[in-house]
């Protein structure tokens, strides 16, 4: 966990007071909506179909049990008893009242949580691997660097009015769980030939209406220089990024139009002129941030405790363990993913009671720490293996032990037209129907790893472009239709999926996905060949034929 200092606490509290005054003036008619809109957006407040939506940041996806209880309290006291975890390590509350928002913010501020820069044309929540600091083989904890960037960019005047929003993600593992290649800047922590720690810097990734995979702009930037290098990128973007057309304003468009070589030259020239710009990180600064992250006092535990051996006789436990429990860097411990994708449930939603219960379980089994992943699941990052059987039973009682992590029912979905004012079509009921179709866990296991991502509009909050199967809702003559893509992926080999053919109506989507999965099962050359690899080997044609032959 990271411990905020007095400066952070003061800043957050001052922001609450400021926003309380702004809301008061708005409700009194002293501020027009035109004047107020940017102020509310800077505090994570959108207007959606039914109500205001309040987006709260969970920096690099790390929460304490105390913070999760505060989120539960907000859900219960100011909303309708649940929240929605997003694809960028945020949580959204869908039914918040403007008049009560300052109180909700004040409650969150008490535990060091805020909503600054969760909207608007600024630096958004810096995200990271939800297994940061505990994943085996990691170069080092990437959250230290996320935190350095968070501190530098929070309320930074130069980055508060960018041409468009700006998103950074950081990973320190070979396997990318942070989707860095679809971010404005992706940072991959690694060591160079001399053993020095630094970053491969990628730039210009993003989804939305013009999707691009990020390109490497510099293979190695030493850690001490990362702040100045990121600032150089932002300065070039701030200077040349388009402000005349919202659809062409993201950095990916600038990188595409200039070309990565020219863009890199511009950045290098800016970086050279900055000459550090006072941003070269002193070793002591890095260590100061590092020192504010506390790590559990792990016990020396056996690799295979007796409790685990005994529980292995229970096939239901074993199914869950194999699916939802991952290796930890410390012997005797595990990382446990809590699926927020129950059969028939809205993906990524958790009730206030579930949040409270997870906070209690985190205190009992995970040193009081919880993680949030971009796949819209939670994780307990430090669970002793001996405690896994008890934890499983407790999770099962609160509906968070669905053994479907990374399987066909572990669907990423945006709120869609049920909530979102931008959406053209619904996402959640499509996801719910698919989870019912593939509810049999034996079938899901037999299918293997398969990511379905659903977006209700081209803005792609459900990351449909990079789903193994992507589903994009569109509107045709007042009806909901869905375009289907296959072969996308969001990991270290990220690529966009390919469209298989004409959009299909709402009522046929689940049938089409079943057809695609059945085609895959018939076409894969062995059970271990993943869906996405079969698509890579064969292309879209055989799937297209299967889907459209009878339609």
């Amino acid at each position, binding site marked *: 966990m990271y411990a905020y200092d007095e400066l952070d606490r003061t800043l957050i509290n001052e922001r609450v007071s400021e926003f309380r005054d702004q809301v008061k003036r*708005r*409700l*009194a*008619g002293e501020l*027009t*909506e035109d004047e107020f809109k940017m102020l509310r957006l800077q505090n994570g407040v959108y*207007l*959606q*179909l*039914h*109500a*205001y939506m309040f987006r709260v940041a969970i920096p690099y996806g790390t929460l304490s049990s105390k913070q999760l209880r505060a989120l539960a309290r907000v859900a219960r006291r100011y909303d309708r008893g*649940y929240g929605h975890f997003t694809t960028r390590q945020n949580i959204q509350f869908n*039914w*918040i*009242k*403007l*008049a009560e928002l300052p109180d909700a913010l004040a409650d969150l501020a008490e535990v060091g949580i805020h909503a600054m820069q969760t909207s608007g044309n600024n630096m958004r929540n810096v995200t990271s691997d939800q297994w940061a600091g505990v994943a085996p083989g990691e170069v080092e904890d990437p959250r230290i660097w996320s935190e350095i960037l968070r501190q530098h960019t929070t309320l930074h005047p130069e980055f508060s009015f960018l041409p468009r929003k700006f998103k950074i993600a950081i990973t320190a593992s070979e396997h990318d769980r942070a989707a860095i290649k679809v971010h404005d800047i992706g940072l991959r922590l690694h060591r160079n030939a001399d053993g020095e720690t630094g970053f491969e810097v990628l730039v210009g990734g993003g989804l939305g209406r013009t999707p691009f995979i990020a390109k490497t702009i510099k293979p190695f930037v030493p850690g001490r220089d990362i702040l100045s290098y990121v600032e150089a990128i932002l300065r070039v973007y701030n200077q040349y990024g388009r402000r005349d057309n919202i659809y062409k304003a993201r950095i990916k468009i600038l990188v595409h139009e200039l070309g990565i070589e020219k863009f890199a030259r511009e950045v290098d020239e800016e970086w050279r002129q900055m000459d550090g710009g006072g941003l070269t990180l002193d070793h002591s600064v890095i260590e100061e941030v590092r020192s504010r992250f506390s790590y559990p006092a792990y016990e020396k535990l056996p690799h295979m405790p007796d409790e685990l051996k005994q529980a292995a006789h229970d096939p239901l436990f074993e199914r869950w363990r194999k699916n939802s429990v991952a290796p930890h860097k410390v012997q005797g411990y595990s990382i446990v993913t809590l699926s927020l994708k*129950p*059969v*028939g*449930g*809205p993906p990524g*939603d958790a009730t206030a009671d579930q949040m409270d219960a997870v906070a209690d379980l985190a205190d009992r089994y995970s040193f009081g720490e919880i993680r949030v992943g971009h796949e819209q699941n939670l994780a307990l990052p430090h669970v002793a293996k001996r405690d896994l059987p008890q934890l499983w039973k407790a999770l099962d009682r609160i*509906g968070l032990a669905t053994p479907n992590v990374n399987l066909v029912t572990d669907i990423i979905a945006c709120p869609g*037209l*049920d*909530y979102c004012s931008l959406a053209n079509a*619904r996402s*959640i*009921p499509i996801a*719910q129907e698919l989870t*019912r179709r593939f509810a049999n866990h034996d079938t899901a296991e037999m299918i293997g790893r398969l990511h379905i991502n659903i977006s209700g509009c081209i803005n792609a909050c459900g990351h449909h472009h990079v789903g193994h199967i992507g589903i994009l809702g569109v509107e045709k003559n*007042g009806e*909901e239709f869905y375009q289907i893509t296959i072969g996308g992926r969001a990991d270290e080999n990220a690529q966009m999926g390919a469209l298989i053919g004409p959009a299909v109506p709402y009522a046929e989507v689940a049938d089409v996905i079943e057809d695609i999965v059945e085609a895959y099962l018939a076409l894969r050359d062995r059970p271990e060949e993943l869906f996405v690899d079969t698509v890579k080997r064969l292309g879209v044609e055989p799937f297209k034929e299967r889907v459209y032959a009878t339609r």
Partner: protein
Amino acid sequence: MTSPLQQKIKITGPSMVTANRTSDGVVIYRTAQQGWSASLSDAAIVRTSDEARALLNEANADDVGAIGAYIAPVELKEGGEIKPGNLREHIRSKGLTIDLLPA
């Protein structure tokens, strides 16, 4: 002649003006009594573009009470019942189409 500053509005059937209430975001409809109601059945119905423009202007003038006012289609049923004219308005009027809990 239309002023270049005048918003171009064209409706093709019966329509209403809807917005969200400023204090809590609740969906509201402009009424014929120059007020707002949370019930679609109370909505003022307009049938021409000029009527729609006038109702929208009136709604926008209430910046304290409502935000994001816009014109949306409705269907008029026998007996005068007002139904939402598209899926978006159906969802705004009737609420979520989904189960919130696993089923």
